[in-house]
């Protein structure tokens, strides 16, 4: 039955073609625009004609700002079917407009001059709402067309395009990795291709997120059949999120800009068109898609058995460490690397607290991240590199570093410990010089305050004049020397008197000798040789007798020595006495110059007596 109707339609179309050529050349002029836009939102207003107009007669966009336009476009197609040529062309004028204020406004049709006739497009009513126009805009466009394209073979169904978010675990622990996948579903009504123009992932509080996958790679495509419809499914984005707090966290929906093209087949009454499946034309739809929001119900970590140095991280980690060398010299450097690797929020791993020996200079660790987000989860490693410079020789131990986390497989806390290292440091060249000076400085700067007041001791005394230069000073300076001078004077005087006693003795001795030798002197002058020597001899004997209280009768040449020794007369004196006596006897009988010898003898006797006297 249908077949007959179709055949009839074709027949009629062929039949009427001849008569209706004029009708075909009738100028069509259509305007289109979204029926609902937001204030300030840019939208397109497009007028399509099938003839080239010679000019634009009037436009009126009263309540809208013209941001851009008109931009012209034209296309033409010529088809020859069975020698029959059909020519169709379309000319478009496109404006980009923006609404000034809220409300319902009508854009009156544009008037063109085509082949000398004025042609007016349809007027459009646009509902301007506050803010963004939303997804309804594109749908409105479809509706706007429906009056003219009542015969569109297939309507574009807005429900055919949507974004859905899935989460791998809606009940995670704090810090546990959750994968959120946003999928774009495109239904069968989109038959002309589509494009995702923008993906807007809003910032999210309470979550730490990484975008997974290779951004350059094409989105993986699958097909699903839902409610009997075949949907193409694209993975728009896969995100790994780490909840930072416990409780309900709503993942803010994604906003995706989407453009698709729907190809319509017009059921025209043109038999040729009917024959070739009707006229086809494309319609573009812009959609702002919004995903559903995912709610994560985060569990807080158990408080029981929580280690003191718990890092706050959940996941699955391992730890390794390496010391570049353990035998070195002072002021040489060694590297200690500690690597934490595994699955979890590695960027939150903090440098482990290692208590290095006090004499070590240790730099802040250099942190190297190697985090892989291309796979299905966030994995990788974080490396801490310490440069250690020992300043003093000796044997040291670098203690082990530890790292605690919540293990998601066993649902318990785990503590990883690195190795501890023994380090042997020998004294190197110029060792310790730099440190010793810097240490000294430190000590200097340690004194951060003045010293305390003194509360003991003799704090003060009445002010005195300066001692130096005062009379007392000069007295003190001069007095000792004055005393010295006085002492010296007294000393001298005493010495002098002592000397006088000697002189007196000398004098007396001289006197005694002279007195005794008085007669001998007279005899010497007289030149009486015989008498002189006798006199000298007698004087000497007499002197000895008087001096040592020995009776003269007891004294003889034989006994004198003995007697004088008895009286404790020195041997020298005795000897001299005897010699003088012998000389005297000898000279008495000696020939030659007598006066000279007598003089000598006189002197000798005098000297002898003086000497004895002076004792």
């Amino acid at each position, binding site marked *: 039955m249908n077949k007959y109707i179709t055949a009839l339609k074709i027949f009629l179309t062929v039949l009427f073609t001849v008569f209706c050529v004029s009708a075909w050349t009738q100028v069509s002029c259509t305007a289109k625009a979204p029926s609902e836009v937001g204030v300030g939102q840019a939208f397109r207003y497009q007028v399509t004609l099938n003839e080239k107009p010679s000019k634009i007669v009037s436009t009126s966009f009263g309540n809208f700002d013209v941001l851009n336009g008109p931009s012209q476009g034209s296309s033409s197609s010529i088809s020859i079917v069975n020698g029959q040529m059909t020519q169709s062309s379309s000319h478009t004028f496109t404006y980009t407009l923006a609404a000034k204020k809220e409300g319902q406004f009508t854009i009156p049709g544009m008037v063109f001059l085509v082949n000398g006739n004025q042609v007016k497009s349809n007027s459009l009513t646009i509902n301007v709402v506050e803010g963004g126009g939303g997804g309804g805009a594109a749908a409105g466009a479809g509706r706007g067309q429906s009056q003219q394209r009542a015969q569109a073979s297939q309507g574009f169904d807005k429900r055919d395009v949507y974004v859905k978010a899935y989460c791998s675990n809606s009940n995670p622990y704090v810090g546990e990795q959750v994968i959120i996948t946003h999928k774009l579903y495109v239904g069968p009504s989109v038959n002309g291709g589509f494009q995702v123009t923008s993906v807007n992932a809003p910032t999210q509080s309470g979550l730490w997120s990484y975008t997974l996958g290779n951004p350059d790679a094409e989105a993986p495509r699958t097909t699903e059949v839902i409610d009997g419809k075949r949907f193409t499914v694209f993975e728009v984005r896969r995100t790994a999120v780490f909840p930072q707090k416990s409780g309900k966290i709503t993942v803010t929906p994604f906003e995706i800009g989407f453009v698709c093209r729907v190809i319509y087949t017009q059921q025209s009454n043109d038999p040729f068109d009917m024959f070739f499946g009707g006229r086809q034309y494309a319609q573009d739809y812009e959609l702002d898609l919004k995903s559903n929001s995912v709610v994560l119900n985060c569990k807080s970590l158990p408080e029981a058995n929580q280690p003191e140095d718990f890092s706050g991280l959940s996941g699955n980690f391992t730890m390794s460490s390496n010391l570049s060398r353990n035998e070195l010299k002072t002021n040489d450097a060694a590297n200690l690397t500690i690597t934490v690797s595994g699955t979890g929020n590695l960027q939150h791993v903090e440098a482990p607290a290692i208590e290095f020996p006090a004499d070590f200079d240790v730099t802040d660790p250099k942190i190297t991240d190697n985090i892989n987000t291309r796979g299905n989860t966030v994995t990788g490693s974080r490396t801490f590199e310490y440069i250690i410079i020992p300043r003093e020789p000796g044997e040291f131990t670098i203690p082990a570093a530890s790292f605690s986390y919540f293990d998601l497989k066993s649902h318990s806390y785990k503590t990883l410990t690195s190795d501890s290292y023994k380090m042997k440091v020998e004294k190197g060249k110029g060792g310790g010089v730099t440190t010793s000076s810097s240490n000294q400085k430190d000590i200097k700067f340690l004194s951060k305050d003045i*010293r305390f007041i*003194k509360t003991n001791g003799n704090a*003060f*005394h009445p*002010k005195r004049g300066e001692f*130096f230069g005062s009379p007392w000073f000069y007295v003190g300076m001069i007095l*000792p020397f004055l005393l010295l001078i006085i002492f010296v004077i007294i000393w001298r005087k005493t010495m002098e008197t002592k000397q006088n006693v000697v002189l007196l003795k000398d004098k007396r001795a001289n006197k005694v000798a002279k007195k005794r030798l008085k007669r001998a002197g007279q005899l010497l002058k007289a030149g009486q040789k015989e008498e002189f020597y006798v006199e000298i001899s007698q004087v000497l004997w007499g002197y000895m007798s008087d001096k040592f209280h020995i009776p003269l009768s007891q004294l003889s040449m034989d006994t004198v020595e003995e007697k004088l020794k008895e009286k404790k007369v020195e041997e020298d004196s005795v000897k001299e006495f005897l010699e003088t006596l012998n000389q005297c006897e000898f000279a008495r009988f000696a020939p030659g110059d007598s006066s000279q010898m007598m003089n000598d003898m006189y002197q000798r006797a005098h000297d002898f007596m003086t000497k004895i006297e002076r004792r």
Partner: protein
Amino acid sequence: MKRLFAIIILLSISYLTFASVDDSLMRQGNAAYQNGDYDLAIDCYQEIIDHGNEGAILYYNLGNAYFKAKQTAEALLWYERALRLDPSNEDIKHNITYANLQITDKIEVLPELFIVRWWNALSKSMTVTGWAVMAVVFGALFALSIALILVSRRRWLSVTAVALAFISLLIAIFSLIFASKEAKRYVNQPEAIVMQSVVNAKGTPNESGTSLFVIHEGLKVAVTDRVGTWVEIKLPNGEKGWVEASSLEVI
């Protein structure tokens, strides 16, 4: 003679009464310092000084009180005065060093030849009085040993006496040199502390002189000359300039 006696008695009575008052003031000042009431401590110490007393510990405590009361220039002035009375005291030196970190000016001290430095350090290690006493004592010792040389009959005694005489003469002479050097330093080239917060040093001793440099309170300078109300100062780095005498306080 009677009059002299009366004066002596009067003086000793007044000294005794003052002494007890001052002792209690000292205790009061120390207690105030320990309680953190530095202004009261300053008043107490200052009153003791007004009574005509001096003393290294007194000056040192006063300097500490001023320092704690954030009057660094005054503190340095009293520390320096304390150091004059007790030149070898480590605590005073330490506090001077520390207080000098708090003042604005930091001037590099001109380097001196090490012998000069040692000489000056030795000279500064005792007060003028100390050196004078030393000169007197060793002068007397010298005289004594000379007398000993004259009297001695024994050889070892005279040799010892000669050595003693030589050494004591040397010490006495050096003590005299140091005493006069230190006295000269105080009298001829006194040192002073800048008490005004900012002082412009001029090239000539009047207001219209060119400004040579700016110094701040707490700096120790040497006073080298005096014209009217102006004094010529010398900085530790050797710079010289004229400032108003009122902006300084001589140590």
